Structures are given as C-alpha cells and as structure tokens.
C-alpha cells in the first residue's frame, strides 16, 4: 500500500521524491522531500482516490546522530494522516537538518490544508524547535511564551533561572542516593545477605 501511494505522489507532485520505508515491525511510512510537503499534503487531501481528510497529529523526533546510514543530524517531522472516509491511515515523514537555536530548521506549514495543523505545529515548534514557514500564529503553546530552548531535543539543557526562580533546584533533584527504589533495593540486598549469613552459621552450628 505504501509503495503505490509513493508512486502516486511521485506522479502527481514533480520532485516529491517520495520513498516508501517498509518496516519489518511496527508501522511503515513514506518519506518525502521537505520542500514539497505542502504540495504533497494538498494532493493527498484533494485526490478523489485517497481523500486524506484528517490530520491527526504532528510528531517530531530528534536524531542528533542521524538516521541509519546517514550521519547528518536531522529532525524528523511525522505527519499522521488519515482518511475517515476510506478508513485508511499513513505516516508522512520529512527530514530536515537540525540547525541550532539561532538557525532553526524550516518546514512549510500545512495550515492551509488542515486547520488541525495550527496547534500541532505550534507544539512541534515549542518542543522541538522546527520553524514552520507560513504559520499564522507561531507562538509557543505548552511552555511559557518567554521560555528558552526546545525541551524534546536530545541535547536540551533547561535554563538556570526563569523569571528570578531557580529552575530544578539542587534540593529537589533526584540523585541516586536519595532514590527510593535504589535505597529499597540496597536494604533488601543487605537483609538477604544477613539472612544467608545467619542460615550458613546455623548450618555450621548443627
């Protein structure tokens, strides 16, 4: 199914460069060229044959060490698209170079295709720092509007001070020695060792 859809996209949008990524486990997906994502989405929505009328979510994934063989750091943006008329579903992917805080990766906004993209793209911008070009209202959505950085990037470090408050103060940190589970495991091990020792001693005595 993914192969046919990729062929269809290549035939409708020139330069879409759609590739079906067949997975052995889990879901397969379709990778398209970043600069044509808007045209691809429009084509999927407009086509009589497929009628992908719902954008369910946009999920960004950060790969600082690249995907598979390719070692260029990328951010992958996944569009979960479904057709509630034909009862089908597909994952569209684009991969953009990761960039840095001053130079965010750029992807065309698909708000003009599905309004659902509005908040989903805002979330993706907030958490992963993807700049959606042409978005009507590019604000943060989950974090405060004056927050710095993009938390779901793998190399994210929280800012130290926010509005005069210390972020993640030391006495609230979950260091291993204070960790309840670790402590319980240590106590359990000690108790087991003591019991074993006692058993061995009682054997010796008898």
């Amino acid at each position, binding site marked *: 199914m993914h192969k046919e859809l990729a062929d269809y996209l290549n035939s409708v949008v020139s330069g879409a460069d759609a590739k079906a990524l067949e*997975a*052995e*486990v*889990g*879901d397969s*997906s379709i990778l398209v060229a970043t600069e044509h994502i808007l045209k691809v989405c429009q084509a999927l929505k407009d086509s009589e044959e497929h009628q992908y*009328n*719902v*954008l*369910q*979510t946009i*999920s960004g*994934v*950060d790969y600082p060490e690249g995907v598979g063989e390719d070692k260029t750091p990328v951010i992958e943006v*996944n569009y*979960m698209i479904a057709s*509630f008329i034909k*009862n089908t*579903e597909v*994952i569209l992917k684009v991969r953009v170079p990761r960039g840095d805080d001053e130079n965010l990766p750029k992807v065309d906004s698909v708000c003009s295709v*599905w*309004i*659902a993209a*509005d*908040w989903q793209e805002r*979330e993706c911008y907030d*958490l992963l720092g993807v700049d959606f070009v042409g978005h009507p209202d590019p604000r*943060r*959505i*989950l*974090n*405060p509007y004056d927050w710095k950085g993009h*938390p*779901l990037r793998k190399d994210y470090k929280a800012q130290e001070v926010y509005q005069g408050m210390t972020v993640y103060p030391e006495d609230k940190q979950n260091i291993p020695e204070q960790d309840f589970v670790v402590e319980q495991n240590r106590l359990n091990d000690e108790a087991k060792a003591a019991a074993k020792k006692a058993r061995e001693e009682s054997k010796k005595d008898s």
Partner: protein
Amino acid sequence: MDSKENSGNGNGHNKYSGEKLKSELLTVNMGPQHPATHGVLRVEVKTDSEVVAEAIPHIGYLHRCFEKHCENIDYRGNIPFCDRMDYLAAMHMELGYCLAIEKMIGTEIPRRAEYIRVIVTELQRIASHLLFTGVYAIDLGAFTPFLYCFDQREKILRLFEEISGARLLYNYIWIGGVWNDIKDGQLTRIKEFCDNLIPELDKYMNLVGQNKIFVERTANIGIMTPEMCYNYGATGPILRGSGVDWDLRKKKPYSIYEELDFDVPVGEGLKGTVGDCWDRFAVRQQEMRESVKIIKQCLDGIEEGPIMGKVPKVLKLPKGEIYMKTECARGELGYHIVSDGGKVPYRVKAKSSCFTHTSMLPEVAPGLLIADFVAVIGSIDIVLGEVDR
C-alpha cells in the same frame, strides 16, 4: 418640539449622542482558576457586551513534560505516567500504551486478560461519562444531577479499588495482560451494577436531558459540522455528536471488540440542529448504555485462564516505530512510539483528543453569549491533564 431641542444643548455637541459614544471590545480572562473551565485553562475572551467576539485559549498550566520523562524511564515504568494524563479515564490511557508496545513485540494476550481489559475500560467509560453528566449540569446551573451521578460513579470507583488497589490512577493494565485477577464475587457485583444502572440512566435523561431549561441552554448552541470536525481532526463523542458514524472500536477493532455486538450512537439533532451541545450530551448518554451492553457480553463470555502473557523480563523493543490509537472516553488517543532497540523509548508522543478539541474553541465561540460559551466548553468535556500532558 423638533429633534434639535430634544438633544440637550441643541448644537449637536451632546456627549451622549450616537457619534460620540465610544464602544470597544472588553477583554475578560476566564481562568486559569475558574469552575467552568474544568481545570487550569485560561481563555482570553474579547466580549462585545455579553457576546463573545473572540476567544483565545492559553494552555500549558499543567504541562508536566510527559514525553520527556518517557525518554528516561523503561517501558514498564512509563505506565503510571500515562495514567496521569487523563486522570478521569486512566484505564484508557494505559490500554493504548500497552497495546502499542504489545504490537511491537508481538505478544499473545491471554483471553481472560482481554475480557478483563474490555470490562474495566468500559466501566471507566461509564464513570467518565457519568462525571461529565453531573459536571455539565453544574456548568448550566443545576446542582442535583451531580449528586446522583457521583453516587453511581462512586460504585465504579469502589469496584476499581477492590480490583486494582486505587481509585483514580490504577497502573492496572500491564504489558502482556493485567496486574490482578478479578474474582467471581466481583464479577457478580459488576453485573448487579450494570443491571441497576439502566433505570438510573433513564432517570438522568428525564431529569437533565429532557429538562426544558437544559434543552433551551444546549439545543442549537455551539454547532459543529462534520466538515469542521474533519478539518480540526476532532474525534470521539464530538465527531459522533455531529452525525458521523466513526468509532475505532468498529472501524479498526483492537482487543476483542470485533467479537462484541454493540451500536455506535450518533447525533440526530432531536432537540435542535445536528452537532449542537445537546447532541453531544445525548451521544454520551447512549454510549453508557452501549458500554453496559458490552460489559454484559464480556461477563457471559469470560473464561478461566492466565492473566499475563509471556513478556521478557528485560523488555527491549525492536528498532522501529508505531502509531497506535484507541477509542477513549473523550476521543481517540494515539501513541507514537519510536524505539532505537534499547530498554527505554527513544520518543513517545501522545496524541491527545482534548488538545484537538480545545483548538476548536476559537472557531465555535464568536457570536455566542458568555453563558453559552461555558456550555460549549462543558460539552466538549476536556481534561486539562491530557491537553497539557
């Protein structure tokens, strides 16, 4: 007397004359702490006297970095975090997460565990909709239904407490099955509860649904058309309330829903237009009856056997990704899980239906009275824990 004399000093410079009166939109902040917003949601409402001209939701007050936490904890350890997203339908949150992982590792779930899963999730759906019924009535100014609904919901919570040890956040559905078996006595009590619920539901429909004031407040208010729902990606009772027959339990059956016989209620516009607040209310009432139907079938069909499948002790997912969605009390919940082959997930993304539904508020709000806007917020039944994650 001519009109000039009538206008005070007669030279047209009266400050109360039509041209001189200034009018501008008044900004009112609803929330973040407001009983009508069901949690910490702030809606910036621009009002023209009593009419809403523009509504801008500001969310994120409950943001707890669910997705970031998941990247640091192993697969089993994440289940309690899932609970805390939608704390009113925690069983559904667990089920979706576990199903996604089971699909990746290809575990066979024992039949008894499948039945128990369906029973508890449908009970949870009833509990969630009962809470909606009560709280929605409070939003519209009726206090009594709240007490009736919470009386019944309490019975479900007590059953859950016996089964799982907790009233709201269960950590009951585990990868491979369920944590604890349901005893025969508890099954009998679930059956009794289901038998008693149907007359209660009739009572609520008479007390709330057919109430003249309630109908006046909800019929023809906040109409959501199917096109609008598709465009925003709305699912669950919102989409069904707009007259679209879409239920994942029928369309993409997971667990054992394929074998069960139930109907999908859709909005019919009995009191007004299809897709208004009353339809969304009515769809939820009907869904509770369908849930009772499902539970009864499961109670008849449940068989003896183990409750946990074979899952490796150190759980590692094969490299790959999955997008798994389930039908929750409030709509579709999707988990996008990416694995790099390790013990912890590389990325977990939760698609929350409440998030999507909240984004519809700016579209519905313009032109409504403020009191009707409260009715709309109530009718989409959002839980802010799931919106903000």
